[in-house]
């Protein structure tokens, strides 16, 4: 079986800086894979290339067997990749419900004329969008806050809303950029439960995360980036004992 997502020799330069260097990566359907590494290792950059925000300097991205390199973010989204952002990018002044409805965008078709006429088909589509939105809000535990303005949510709730918004489009692959950042232990525990439920829905997950306990307890595989290069890949236990990884995180003892 071919991989759901495959990166081949992905390289990204920013001016003179090599953010990611010749990165190969594979993700099978149904897996949970984490990308870890020290700050500035290039993890978020990898996400930004997969989701189409930055074009890679070299290399290819394949999704479901299709070459999606250099595609625009809105085209990639319709292929079934949804993401969250490290520094929350919610539609701040809109309601929680509207945030999730916008997440459903590529599942609808209504344009200007449809909006003006509100024909039965349009109404039916709105109903489907509403039902789907309420369903994902239920999953992340925000169903009782649908009328709240996104900006007024607590930090952890905002992170969960980002996940709900990404789920609304029923993606095949969910990219989570530091989903547990800024959460307290209790919230992290809930988040872990939530991710397990999402996984059970058949959604493949790729995440970037700094909390090692969190990563180790949820991932099937962990890849480690350092200075834009992959230095290790394996099960959580293998990676944890890899001397290269320990050096990258703690610095080498000799110097």
């Amino acid at each position, binding site marked *: 079986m071919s991989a759901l997502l495959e990166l081949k020799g992905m390289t990204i330069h920013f001016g003179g800086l090599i953010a990611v260097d010749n990165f190969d990566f594979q993700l099978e359907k149904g897996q949970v894979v984490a990308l870890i590494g020290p700050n500035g290792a290039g993890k978020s950059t990898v996400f930004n290339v997969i989701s189409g925000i930055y074009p890679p300097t070299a290399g290819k991205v394949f999704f479901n067997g299709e070459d999606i390199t250099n595609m625009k973010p809105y085209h990639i989204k319709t292929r079934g990749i949804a993401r969250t*952002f*490290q520094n929350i990018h919610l539609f701040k002044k809109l309601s929680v419900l509207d945030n999730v409805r916008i997440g459903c965008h590529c599942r609808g078709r209504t344009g200007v004329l449809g909006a003006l006429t509100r024909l039965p088909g349009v109404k039916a589509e709105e109903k489907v969008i509403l039902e789907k939105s309420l369903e994902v809000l239920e999953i992340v535990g925000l169903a009782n806050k649908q009328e709240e303005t996104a900006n007024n949510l607590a930090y952890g709730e905002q992170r969960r809303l980002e996940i709900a918004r990404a789920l609304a489009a029923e993606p095949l692959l969910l990219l989570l950029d530091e989903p547990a950042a800024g959460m307290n232990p209790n919230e992290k525990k809930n988040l872990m439960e939530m991710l397990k439920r999402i996984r059970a829905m058949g959604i493949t997950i790729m995440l970037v995360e700094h909390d090692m306990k969190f990563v180790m307890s949820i991932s099937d595989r962990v890849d480690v980036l350092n200075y834009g290069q992959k230095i290790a890949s394996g099960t959580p236990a293998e990676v944890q004992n890899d001397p290269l990884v320990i050096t990258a995180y703690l610095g080498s003892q000799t110097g």
Partner: protein
Amino acid sequence: MFWQQLVNGVTLGSTYALIALGYTMVYGIIQLINFAHGEVYMIGAFTGLIMVVVYKVNFFVAMLAAMLACTVVAVVIEKVAYRPLRNSPRLAPLISALGVSTFLQTLVTLIRGGPNPLPFPQVIQDTVYILGPIRFSKVQVIILILASLLMVFLQCTVKYTKIGKAMRAASEDYATARLMGINVDRVVSFTFGLGAALAGAGGVLVGMYFNSIHPFMGVTVGLKAFCAAVVGGIGSIPGAMMGGIFLGVAEVFGVAMGFDTYKEAIAFALLILVLLVKPTGLFGRPIQRKV
């Protein structure tokens, strides 16, 4: 003919450049299009006129007085109309700027007693120098020399002084500059004052060049100078200088080629053309999307 028009164009352009610098510096730091800047320039011209006519001072003293008056006006405008809006939605300071414009135009109209143009007295004897095929009037020579001196002075201020370094830091990253202990409020005040001084000098020079000033003179020239700043690459100081001269030259050549009825549109047409070819302007830096 060609060289003569070039000299005329550069003269006109250097006055645009003096005004464009104020737009570009302010935009560089707080991303505000200071639409009241044209009115500051107008106030400079009127101050110069009052100094020359009422106080009978020498032209250079009048120009210094205009620069000083504009600095004070701009610093006050910034304190009253912009600073309280630093954290407001981006359109709020723009609307405030337009309110200031309307206010100042009306104020000067009331003081002057009507919107009609006033003649600017001939403060410089109209001697003509001839250099090969080109005729320089003394006024042109003074404008070119003073404008260049002011721009050199500005470059030195920005490059070599402590406050200049603070300006560059604030324009690179406002929030970080603040965290590094730079008093950004003072930097912004200083930037407004510096830009206004240049605009004030421009106002006196233009008044002298065209022999006529009026309360609404800042509107069109202000917009054109803003175009110059964008054409040069908004936020870039050399860009504003080159952009101003470029537009001035283009306007003079456009008129010479028979597009005189389209004179007022030339700067704007060039603006759109330049943006189509090079969106960041001639000297602007490419924008990196931040996620």
